[in-house]
C-alpha cells in the first residue's frame, strides 16, 4: 500500500490541507470578524472539527466544509452578541507594491479604501477582499460559500459602486 493518499485522516495530508487552506480561511474570517485574533482562534476550532470528521469529508470538499464551520461559529458568536459592529476595527495593513504605476497618490487612496472597505456590508466585503487580496476567482468564492457565481458577481459589482461612493466622500 502506498502512503500517498487523499485521505484527510492521514496526518501528512491533514498538514498539507492546513498549510494550503488555513491562510485563506483565516483571511475570510478576518473579513467577517474584523479581528485577527478571533479569526485565528476559529481557524483552529474549524480544523479540529475537520480532523474529527475526516472520514466524511473528501479533500475536494474540505474548503467549503471549513468555510461553513467557520461561518457557523461566527453566527453563533453574533447570536451571543460578542461580535460588535465596529467599523474602525477591521485589521488591514499596508503592503509593498512593485507595480511602477502605483504612485504616492495610490498609497493615499488605499488609505481611504481601507476605511471604505470597513464600511461595506459583510457579504460584499468578504467577496471583494477574497478576490483582491486572496486572489480567489468568482467561481472559487461561489463554491466556498455555496452560492451561485452570479450572486458573487452582483455582490462584487455592488461592492465597487459602494467603495467608489465612499471614497469620493472621504
Amino acid at each position: 500500500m502506498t502512503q500517498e493518499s487523499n485521505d484527510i485522516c492521514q496526518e501528512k495530508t491533514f498538514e498539507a490541507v492546513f498549510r494550503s487552506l488555513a491562510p485563506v480561511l483565516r483571511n475570510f474570517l478576518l473579513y467577517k470578524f474584523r479581528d485577527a485574533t478571533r479569526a485565528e482562534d476559529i481557524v483552529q476550532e474549524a480544523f479540529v472539527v475537520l480532523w474529527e470528521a475526516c472520514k466524511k469529508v473528501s479533500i475536494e470538499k474540505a474548503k467549503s466544509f471549513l468555510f461553513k464551520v467557520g461561518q457557523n461559529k461566527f453566527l453563533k458568536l453574533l447570536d451571543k452578541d460578542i461580535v460588535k459592529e465596529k467599523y474602525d476595527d477591521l485589521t488591514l495593513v499596508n503592503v509593498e507594491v512593485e507595480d511602477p504605476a502605483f504612485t504616492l497618490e495610490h498609497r493615499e487612496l488605499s488609505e481611504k479604501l481601507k476605511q471604505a472597505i470597513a464600511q461595506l456590508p459583510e457579504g460584499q466585503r468578504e467577496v471583494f477582499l477574497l478576490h483582491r487580496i486572496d486572489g480567489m476567482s468568482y467561481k472559487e468564492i461561489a463554491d466556498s460559500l455555496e452560492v451561485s457565481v452570479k450572486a458573487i458577481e452582483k455582490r462584487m459589482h455592488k461592492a465597487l459602486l459602494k467603495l467608489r461612493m465612499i471614497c469620493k466622500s472621504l
Partner: protein
Amino acid sequence: MKPWEQDDTFLSRWLNNELSEKELREFESSEEGKAYIDMMLASKGIGTPTYDVEKALSQVKSKIGEKKAGKQRFLPRAVTMTVAATVTLLAAFAVYWFTKDTVISTGFGEQQLVTLPGGSKVTLHANSSISYDEDDWSQSRTVELEGEAYFDVSEGSLFSVNTAVGTIEVLGTSFNIKSRLELLQISCYQGSVKLLNRLNEVILEAGEGVSIRLSETTLFDLSHETPSWLQGVSSFNEAPLDEVVQELEVVFGMRIENINRLPKEEYTGSFPHSSAENALRLVFEPFGVDYEYNESRNTLILK
C-alpha cells in the same frame, strides 16, 4: 444612464476582463472608469497582517491531542456545538466506535494498489473507496466498494464485495467491479464470480462480463486480459454518454457545466488518461458535441 449603473454585474465583468472591446473602451476612457482603475490599483496596497501557519498548525495538533486523551468526556460537550458541526461529528464518531472499518479511498485522477490481509490485492480506480473490518477478516472476507476497483483475490474462504446495487461473491479469482450511480458492471478475468442482488443471480466465467443499468441486465464478452484503466486507458462498449462523461470527471477531476446538454447517445471507444484535451476530442467529436475546455480552471463547458 451609464452601463455600469444599470447592469448589475458590469464592474465584476470588468475586473474579470469579460467586457466587450466597445464596452471596455467606453468605460476606461470615462472619468468614472479612470477613478475605478485608480481604486483597483490602490487596492493592491492593502493586505492582511502576517499569519504564522506553522505555529497555528502545531497549536491545532496539540488541541487534537488533548481531545484524544479526554475522549470519554468529549461526546457530551459536542452536543453544545452548532447543529451542522454536531451532526458531522456524531457521524464520524459512529463510524469510529461501532465499526472501526479500515477505509481507503482515492481522489480524482488517482489510482492506488491496496494489499488486503491474506495477500489479496485491490487496485482502486479514481474517486473510489473500499472499506473492510480488519478484526473480523479471518471470519469473513468482506469488502464494501464505492466506485471502481480491480480485485485479485488469493484462494481461501468466500470473498464478497458489497456494492450499492448487489453483492459479488468469489473464491479465488481476478475481476473488475464498477459501481457508480445506477451502473453496476462486473468483468471476470479469471476463475468465476457470482453476483447476487434483488433481481439477479448471475454466474460469470472467465472472459465474461455483465452490466446492470437500472434494472436492465446485459451480458458481454471481454476483449482484454485485465481492465484497460490499469494501463491508463478507459474503454467503453455501447455505454451511455453520461457514463463516459462521468469517467472523464473521475479521471481528470474536471468540473462539468451544462451536463443536461449532453445528447442521449451510446459510445464505443476509449480515451487515454494522459491528456484531457485528447480524451475530450475522442469522446465528443464522433457526436459533433460542441464544447469548451478551460484548462486552467479544469472545467468542461457543454454548449
